[in-house]
């Protein structure tokens, strides 16, 4: 046996070590800094982003896992996620709104264990969040919070004119006529944006209508209930609103009530929160009430947001550790929720009467007793086809056609034909 020289020892041990690393495709644990990255949206409640960074620093301090948080505008999320998935590289964790887990089902880690722990602690996940994060029975993302739509109105104008807070969409027509006469019209967008769909959905559902059936295949838009909904929009457009709603984007209704023009809008509480933060004179005059109902009940649009972990991530375990750290400890979760000033609320059953709702009497309307929350396309399960119907703005365009001269029947027939083409494609 040849003598072991220093040179021979170093050569053989280095070679064996390198071979091991290459075979395992991972660096040795000792001396390796664990690190995870999280791609998160630019929160509409910016203070929540600050709080997230703060909690992230504490997480690093407590666990030794380095956390890198990047932010991206909501409008750019789809493109960025598509590129990460196509290149199988990028962040470990991603913030996913609404239907995203369905679009990326095959690319996301099963997070059932984390959700089970959270449900044990906080109660069941709210239906709208469960419908979007649990894909074909598997939790592809962990629900973290939701922003729901609510009726936002100028309480001072209502008091001045002796108007009653509307309980149904028909009631809204009655008060809307008065508001328009006062120079403060109702502001419901009828344009190619998501707020338009967020209002059209609840109105349609409350009249008993739907776009696509529960089977996710059969188009059901051509119905007497849709005709009722369109007739309601027509009279609202004529008597309660201004034509400008045809050009609005997602921020326009907020601005309309903040700047003192609109008397009633349908939006998450952001319009009020921003008015309060910017100390606008309208902040004191705005209040909220639960969403109006119709013959088929009281329905509302919900925007649940989740955290998913890409399958290509090599750091799934530390990523899960961060999700547990952020959402699994009650005091941290509370701190996180409180930072959004009621814009983003907990998505777990036992946390519905959250302390954040008691921080301002104007949040009372957010308790929304008796309101059923759904995501776009309900009751059809989320899918790329249902999503294409949403993203193609077929519903707002159907309404826009009807309020600008097309007959109700023709507008519905047009929408039905477009939806059927999407389903067949």
């Amino acid at each position: 046996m040849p003598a072991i020289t220093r040179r021979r020892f170093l050569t053989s041990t280095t070679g064996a070590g390198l071979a091991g690393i290459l075979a395992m495709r991972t660096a040795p644990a000792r001396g390796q800094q664990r690190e995870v990255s999280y791609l998160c949206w630019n929160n509409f409640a910016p203070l929540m982003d600050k709080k997230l960074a703060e909690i992230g620093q504490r997480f690093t301090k407590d666990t030794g896992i380095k956390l890198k948080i990047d932010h991206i505008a909501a409008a750019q999320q789809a493109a960025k996620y598509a590129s990460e998935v196509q290149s199988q590289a990028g962040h470990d964790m991603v913030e996913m709104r609404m239907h995203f887990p369905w679009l990326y089902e095959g690319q996301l880690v099963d997070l059932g264990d984390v959700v089970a722990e959270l449900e044990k602690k906080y109660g069941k996940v709210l239906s709208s969040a469960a419908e979007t994060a649990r894909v074909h029975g598997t939790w592809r993302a962990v629900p973290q919070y939701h922003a729901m739509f609510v009726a936002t109105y100028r309480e001072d104008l209502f008091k001045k004119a002796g108007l009653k807070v509307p309980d149904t969409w028909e009631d809204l027509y009655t008060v809307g006529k008065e508001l328009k006469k006062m120079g403060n019209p109702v502001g419901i967008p009828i344009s190619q944006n998501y707020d338009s769909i967020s209002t059209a959905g609840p109105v349609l559902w409350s009249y008993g209508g739907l776009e696509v059936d529960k089977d996710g295949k059969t188009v059901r838009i051509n119905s007497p209930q849709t005709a009722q909904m369109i007739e309601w929009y027509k009279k609202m457009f004529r008597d309660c609103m201004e034509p400008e709603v045809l050009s609005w984007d997602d921020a326009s209704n907020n601005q309309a009530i903040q700047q003192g023009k609109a008397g009633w809008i349908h939006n998450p509480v952001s319009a009020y929160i921003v008015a309060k933060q910017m100390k606008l004179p309208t902040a004191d005059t705005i209040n909220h009430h639960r969403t109006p109902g119709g013959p088929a009940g009281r329905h509302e649009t919900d925007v649940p947001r989740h955290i998913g972990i890409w399958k290509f991530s090599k750091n799934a375990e530390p990523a899960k550790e961060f999700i547990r750290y952020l959402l699994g400890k009650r005091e941290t979760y509370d701190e996180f929720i409180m930072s959004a000033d009621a814009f983003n609320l907990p998505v777990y059953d036992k946390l519905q009467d959250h302390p954040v709702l008691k921080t301002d009497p104007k949040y009372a309307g957010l308790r929304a007793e008796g309101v059923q929350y759904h995501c776009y396309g309900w009751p059809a399960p989320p899918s790329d086809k249902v999503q294409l119907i949403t993203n193609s703005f077929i519903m707002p365009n159907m309404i826009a056609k009807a309020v600008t001269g097309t007959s109700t029947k023709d507008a519905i027939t047009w929408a039905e034909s477009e939806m059927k083409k999407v389903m067949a494609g």
Partner: protein
Amino acid sequence: MSPALLLLLLLVAYPFCMALYFSVSNAFIGRPSHFIGIRNFLNLWQSDAFRQTFQNAFVFTGAAVGAKLVLGISLAMLLDQQLWFKRLIRGAVLLPWVIPTALSTLGWWWMFNSLYSVVNWTGLTLGLMDPPGPNWLGQKYYAMTAVVVVNIWRGLPFFVITILAGLVAIPRELYEAAEADGAGAFARFWHVTLPLLKPVLAIVVLFSTIFTFSDFNIVFVLTHGGPINSTHLFATLARQVGLETGRIGEGAAISLYLSPVLMLVVFAQLRFVRKQAY
């Protein structure tokens, strides 16, 4: 392999070939895809939104390039004169082209916004409009006018500066000779300026046609393709279908739909330019 060729392959050929492949496949983000021939291209024609987009693209490009050409020649001829602060004015003309499009379009969005429109405020104050003024981004003809106007504003400097370079290169003796022969201003323009500018104009129109057909920022920021898809262009519709919904096969087909036509335009114009040169 030379570095230039490598760069060309990596940055131009590879993405283009990928887009070509996507357009003939049923590619969906993150899922295995299969070759489906030209089915995407055929199916698209069934969509009302796509047919509308197809029409919009020609209206938008025709109106914008036509206006930029006429205004570009006029402004270039004006700047070719002996003016005070000539350099400063020539520099200032370039500004719309220098500012990032998304940013400047946001300024225009503000001007057309129903709540804050300075355009309507001015029109109403001067008594030129009836209250509440045009619904710029909410009515289809106004919305198309708005996106065309912003495209003209943005693209005009490219026309002006390039045409100006062409004008400067025309020998002054030709004008003097024409004047000696009794040619008036219009005759000089028609028989001297325009023929000698033709190669420059062909190149400018060629580039501008391609850029305008593929415009994205202006429509995305101003109207998101609305109202009722009346301002959608191929790029904005491709984004909506390909990225927001995940159907990248269909999205790629939308963005490549006009490629054969544009290639023919490029071929014809370059041929024309070559003829003019020899």
